């Protein structure tokens, strides 16, 4: 009997949905095993169709994208009610992803910059989007633009996470196959990824690390063989779960942590901060400062994809 599945996206870019499509011929296996009852990017199902289902009707809901506005949360709650298993797909749902970088700002700061101050906008009256607005014919409403980006598991209970930005298509397939093969691991675990850090599968040679200066990728022609961190290039690979096949590193740029932290690591960014600080070369306070001056935008680099999932989640207002 085919599994009944719903796929939805919150504050997302559609990359995860494309990743599902990128399973190429495997898509046929997925289609053979699953009936899709909601997939806005690809199929014409409406929210009402889902609302009409009785609770738990769907075997699994695959939610990608972060919780950025009230609609994202409503549909998440709706899908939670309508499905037995909730899967967070991709870094946005799992960690907050790139949209999570908004947690360094407040709602008003964002709206002012986008609708009023942005150079290409002419908006003398300073109109910003409203949640409800009356027109002659009736009342129109829009979802509320939240002050803080949340991850999926901060609004609903989530059984499984498929990390990555985007998740590797093959990993999505292997994760989904766990469902129909009924081999799902304990609830709450991350599937479709490794349980060691990226360094394990990184092609570069790793030796003892002592860093006396950090450099920016465009300032240097890195040695293709040697570990990035040893060459003074900030790379979050050591604190990031493997599973992506080190695709960024293989294309010559250091890892930015999109596959999220390892199991018992509550905060990827602060953990990486601890690791990097420990291997600095100088012992004197002044020299340490000189080295730290060479790290550009440390906090947002360490939390490129995982700000909403970090312990402090956002900048204090």
């Amino acid at each position: 009997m085919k599994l009944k599945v719903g796929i939805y996206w919150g504050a997302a870019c559609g990359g995860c949905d494309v990743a599902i499509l990128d399973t190429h011929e495997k898509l046929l296996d997925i289609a053979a095993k699953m009936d899709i009852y909601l997939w806005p990017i690809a199929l014409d199902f409406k929210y009402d169709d889902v609302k009409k289902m009785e609770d738990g009707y769907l075997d699994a809901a695959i939610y990608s994208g972060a919780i950025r506005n009230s609609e994202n949360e409503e549909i998440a709650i709706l899908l939670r009610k309508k499905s037995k298993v909730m899967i967070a797909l991709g870094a946005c749902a799992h960690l907050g992803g790139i949209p999570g970088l908004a947690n360094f700002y407040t709602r008003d700061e964002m709206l002012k910059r986008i609708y009023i101050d942005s150079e290409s906008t002419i908006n003398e009256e300073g109109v910003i989007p409203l949640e409800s607005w009356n027109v002659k014919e009736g009342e129109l409403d829009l979802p509320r633009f939240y002050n803080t980006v949340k991850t999926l598991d901060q609004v609903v209970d989530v059984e499984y996470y498929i990390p990555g930005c985007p998740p590797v298509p093959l990993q999505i397939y292997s994760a989904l196959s766990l469902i129909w093969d009924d081999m799902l691991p304990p609830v709450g675990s991350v599937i479709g990824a490794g349980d060691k850090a990226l360094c394990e599968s990184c092609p570069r040679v790793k030796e003892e690390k002592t860093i006396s200066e950090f450099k920016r990728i465009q300032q240097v022609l890195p040695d293709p063989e040697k570990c990035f961190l040893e060459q003074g290039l900030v790379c979050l690979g050591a604190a990031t779960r493997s599973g992506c096949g080190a695709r960024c590193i293989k294309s010559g740029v250091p890892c930015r942590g999109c596959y999220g932290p390892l199991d018992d690591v509550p905060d990827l960014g602060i953990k990486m901060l601890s690791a990097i600080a420990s291997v600095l070369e100088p012992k004197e306070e002044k020299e340490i400062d000189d080295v730290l001056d060479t790290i550009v935008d440390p906090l947002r680099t360490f939390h490129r994809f995982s700000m909403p999932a970090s312990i402090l989640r956002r900048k204090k207002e």
Partner: protein
Amino acid sequence: MKRIEIDPITRLEGHGKITIFLNDEGDVENAFLQIPELRGFEKFVEGLPIEEVSRVVPRICGV
């Protein structure tokens, strides 16, 4: 005044909702396309090191 809502509009990148108002004769009185989606790249890309911008902005649209 009768109201038809197509929510969400599908098979495209991004979110949207169409609200159509019909008058008593059943003809279309007015129609609105509403885009609820906003993530704020315009703000949070500010101050990023330039080499990181090229790794952040592709997440505007992944299709």
